[in-house]
């Protein structure tokens, strides 16, 4: 029972991070119509910045917040300078640019900070003894902290989308960009904000997951996260923030249970499992559980 609970906690923790990463993908997809495959590597880059700031003696919370601000700028500038000029041509071009950014940001991080793994300090008490016992299982405080940050972040995104003017305009642009422009919404600015917002969310995903990751912060830390988050976003529906959350948790739990109880999957096969999930979703329910828009070009 207690081992099951520990796996459950692990699953929820990882799933929470996949959920916010998936939400970053959803925010971009709703506006731009493509998956930003570079989202993970942009988050990697800002996580390195956060790590570097802590090495310079900044408190880890300050570092995380500065990193998320950099994430916003990185996302917004990318949209404005690289995505917008080529987006009008076709969706494939956007996808190719995203893939280019993927390798670009990864190489840049390697160039600046070399390929050695770094120890990213946790935002929360992360010692051996920082846990509470729940039903005989250990619930570590840093895992609990991740849940909390993710809940706050998701709450903030939903507030933004559903209770603010700018969120209303974002939903309008996602729904029908031409009509939004006809009512006076500056669609370009809204898309830029969307990419910036995704940059903030991604930064948090990176800062939260790196201390929990077995290899800490390395050049490949964010790649599996992006794969799981893509699976989560597809599972929930690429244009649905609710779907991203549900999908993220589902994938996290699935991963924890499969690696825990299915012996042959072991350490690296879960990513393959995630890919298998992606293929099945695309085959049988291309709009995902909560999605509405038919995906045509993926």
């Amino acid at each position, binding site marked *: 029972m207690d081992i099951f609970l520990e796996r459950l906690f692990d699953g929820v923790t990882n799933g929470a991070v996949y959920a916010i990463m998936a939400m970053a993908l959803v925010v971009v997809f709703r506006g731009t119509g493509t998956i930003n495959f570079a989202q993970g590597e942009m988050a990697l880059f800002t996580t390195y910045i956060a790590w570097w700031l802590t090495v310079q003696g900044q408190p880890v919370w300050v570092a995380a917040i500065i990193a998320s601000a950099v994430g916003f700028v990185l996302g917004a500038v990318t949209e404005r300078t690289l995505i917008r000029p080529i987006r009008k041509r076709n969706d494939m071009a956007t996808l190719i640019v995203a893939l280019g950014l993927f390798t670009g940001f990864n190489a840049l991080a390697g160039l600046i900070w070399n390929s050695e793994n770094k120890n990213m300090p946790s935002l929360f008490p992360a010692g051996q003894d920082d846990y509470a016992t729940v039903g005989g299982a250990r619930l570590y405080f840093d895992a609990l902290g991740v849940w909390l940050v993710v809940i706050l972040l998701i709450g903030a995104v939903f507030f933004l989308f559903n209770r603010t003017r700018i969120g*209303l305009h974002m939903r309008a642009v996602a729904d029908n960009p031409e009509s939004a422009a006809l009512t006076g919404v500056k669609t370009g600015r809204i898309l830029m904000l969307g990419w910036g917002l995704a940059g903030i969310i991604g930064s948090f995903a990176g800062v939260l997951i790196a201390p929990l990751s077995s290899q800490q912060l390395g050049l490949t830390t964010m790649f599996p996260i992006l794969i799981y988050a893509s699976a989560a976003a597809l599972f929930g529906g690429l244009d649905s923030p609710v779907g991203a959350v549900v999908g993220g948790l589902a994938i996290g739990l699935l991963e924890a249970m499969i690696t825990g109880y299915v012996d042959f999957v072991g350490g690296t096969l879960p990513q393959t499992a995630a890919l298998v999930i992606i293929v099945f979703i695309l085959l049988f329910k291309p709009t995902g559980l909560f999605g509405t828009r038919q995906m045509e070009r993926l």
Partner: protein
Amino acid sequence: MSLLEVAGLTAGYGPARVLHGLDLTVEAGEVVVVLGANGAGKTTTMRALSGLIPHTGTIVFDGEPLDGLGPDAVVARGVSLVPQGRGTFSHLTVLDNLRVGAALRRDKAGIRDDIDRWCEVFPILAKRSKQEAGTLSGGEQQMLAVARALMSRPKLLLCDEPSLGLAPRIVSELFAILGDINREQGTALLLVEQNADLALDLASRVYLLEVGRVVAEGEAERFREDESIRRAYLGL
């Protein structure tokens, strides 16, 4: 000076020219209808006027040129388009659709008042206010599209084939309301239509479009009465 003065308007899609030098005016508070068959360039005219596609020639509105402005800037000047096919935000509620219509306004109380007013004019919108627009019938969506366009308080409302795909009873209801809005608010209307009869009843002046040019224009009355014009151009 007229409210809208269009001179030598050419526009199209990529290399394909659809409009070949169109001249057209709308006076303040006037109702003008542009009639024409499929492919005459009616929708292209509307898209060029609202800034959705680039054009050459001049468009002067309220004494200021609109040339080179995007759709968000054009609506800020007071020209609002009800696009063909309605273009409602199908996953947003009716109420949110109306709120987006006021994207350029900051007067919260005024926006609320306007939402109330259009919900009174179109009672179906009040009834469906919490429903997603995509669940509405075609006629209801057309009403919503008109109300949304009016939320920006335009001086000139452009309507691209508002009768398309609607039952005749709904069309006459819609045209009656458009007439009321024109009389009560003084909003000028520029409609493009294939449905000549109802549009002619509403309009004071008519332009007849053929392959991207105006081939006839005049008082709506003359178009209603003159048998030869009706036969030659309107197929009635």
